[in-house]
């Protein structure tokens, strides 16, 4: 039997994570739906890992010629901008979530 394409495994992780998300999000109390949106914003900025890869692009191995090095420079520029955008979101998202959550207080008895 031939080996299963790794893409299938990634698809499996993805599908299972959608289910995890479904159950986890239904259990979020409606009072915290705004912080939920702020924090999902922050965590979706984990796309910064892609931006980091882009910013470290090099012309690479022997096969890469002139064109590839031009591509690497362009990629670094895109990566730099993407790092800025994602960082705004990461810091802004987590900190504003923290600020909101600090406001939720129970009745003093």
């Amino acid at each position: 039997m031939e080996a299963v394409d790794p893409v299938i495994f990634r698809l499996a992780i993805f599908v299972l994570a959608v289910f995890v998300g479904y159950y986890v999000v239904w259990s979020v109390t409606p009072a915290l739906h705004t912080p939920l949106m702020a924090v999902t914003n922050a965590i979706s900025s984990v796309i910064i890992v892609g931006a980091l890869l882009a910013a470290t692009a090099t012309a690479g191995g022997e096969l890469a010629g002139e064109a590839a090095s031009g591509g690497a420079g362009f990629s670094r520029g895109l990566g730099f901008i993407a790092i800025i955008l994602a960082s705004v979101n990461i810091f802004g998202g987590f900190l504003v979530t923290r600020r909101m959550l600090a406001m939720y207080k129970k009745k003093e008895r």
Partner: protein
Amino acid sequence: MSVNLAALLYLVSGILFILALRGLSSPETARRGNVFGMAGMAMAVVTTLLAVDLDALSLVLIVAGVAIGGGVGAVIARRVPMTAMPQLVAAFHSLVGMAAVLVAAAALYAPEAFHIADGLGNLKHLSLFELSMGTAIGAITFSGSVIAFAKLNGNMSGAPIILPARHILNIAIGVFIAVMIAFLMASGGDAKLAFWLITIAAFVLGVTLIIPIGGADMPVVVSMLNSYSGWAAAALGFTLENTALLVTGALVGSSGAILSYIMCKGMNRSFISVILGGFGESGDAAAEAGPQGNAKQGSADDAAFVMKNAGKVIIVPGYGMAVAQAQHALKEMADMLKEEGVDVSYAIHPVAGRMPGHMNVLLAEAQVPYDEVFELEDINSSFSNADVAFVIGANDVTNPAAEDDPSSPIYGMPVLQVWKAKTVFFVKRSLGSGYAGVENPLFFRDNTMMLLGDAKKMVESIVKVLD
């Protein structure tokens, strides 16, 4: 760092993100959840930095990028007023969308850095498909969120903008994007122009999808764009073969989808009808035909007197409270009533405000304890034994026509049954109809008293009388 170790660490980071969302099931665990989220993010970033070869230039780019972006983000997070939270979330969505577009473009131009090139520097078909989806969804998220931001922030009218033949236009753009994706895949990644055409077309699609949707439907739009930003991240998670990104994309995608569903249910509208847009334009005719009569007007003195002598008061806040920034004055009023021995609680409709949970955050900001704040299904039966329902800046969500008038555009929408209270006070600027353009017959009932004026000023004068 070995590739396998990195993959495992990305998995851990994905799990920390799940725990971050899990924490939000109660305000007590939410703060710890947020720390998990930050830890997950730090872990993903550090893992990536350890796995790549850093040279001096890339190090400068990374440090400068994080410093600039992080600084801006931290300042925004500290300064933004809580009433502006819907705009802020829309703005943040647009950044995720744009970051996705940039990362997808970088992956196309420097596939070696993303380990998606074959030996000859060509891209796999599947990778091309994934990054095309990433850029397309990211671009829609970006431009759609910019429009949503402009509508929420008041840079643009909240009224729906209806383009002629917009459905055909949207379908045409969608088909064009699909054709270009096929073309890009067939070219093995050489057709860079096709990539940019996909991106530009998706930018346009984001605009044409969101402009016909009116202000009152913004909670759905914001949730939907939240969902899109997740799917864009997930698409790139496939390209980068990165578990953290895949898991996060799936979490955020389903989170936004669930919130959209909850919002739609709160309005008794189908998701499709919200997406198709144009709600609120046909309401005028219905409003004119609605019941007219004499609305009883009251003063701050009347309200203060009645509430002081009441046993139970339920406060129903809406978007008008947010606009007038009346939450602090409202809390003061509630405190004074509590000193008089009145039982005060708050009733929140799922679609009150401009985003899910908007009212809860504002009340929390005013230091209203969260255990005095109740959701629709938990408090609706309490109105019948309440002496006063104090409606401030809400309208459509209290409209009895939703229950007893099948011809009403909002018929079937779950509403707060404020009319069951002995007395209803309505703090409102005018007797006009709500965002849905629907007349509220409650204004003309015998047990309703209208307190016309700015919400904040009205509450402040009630506080003065109570004092």
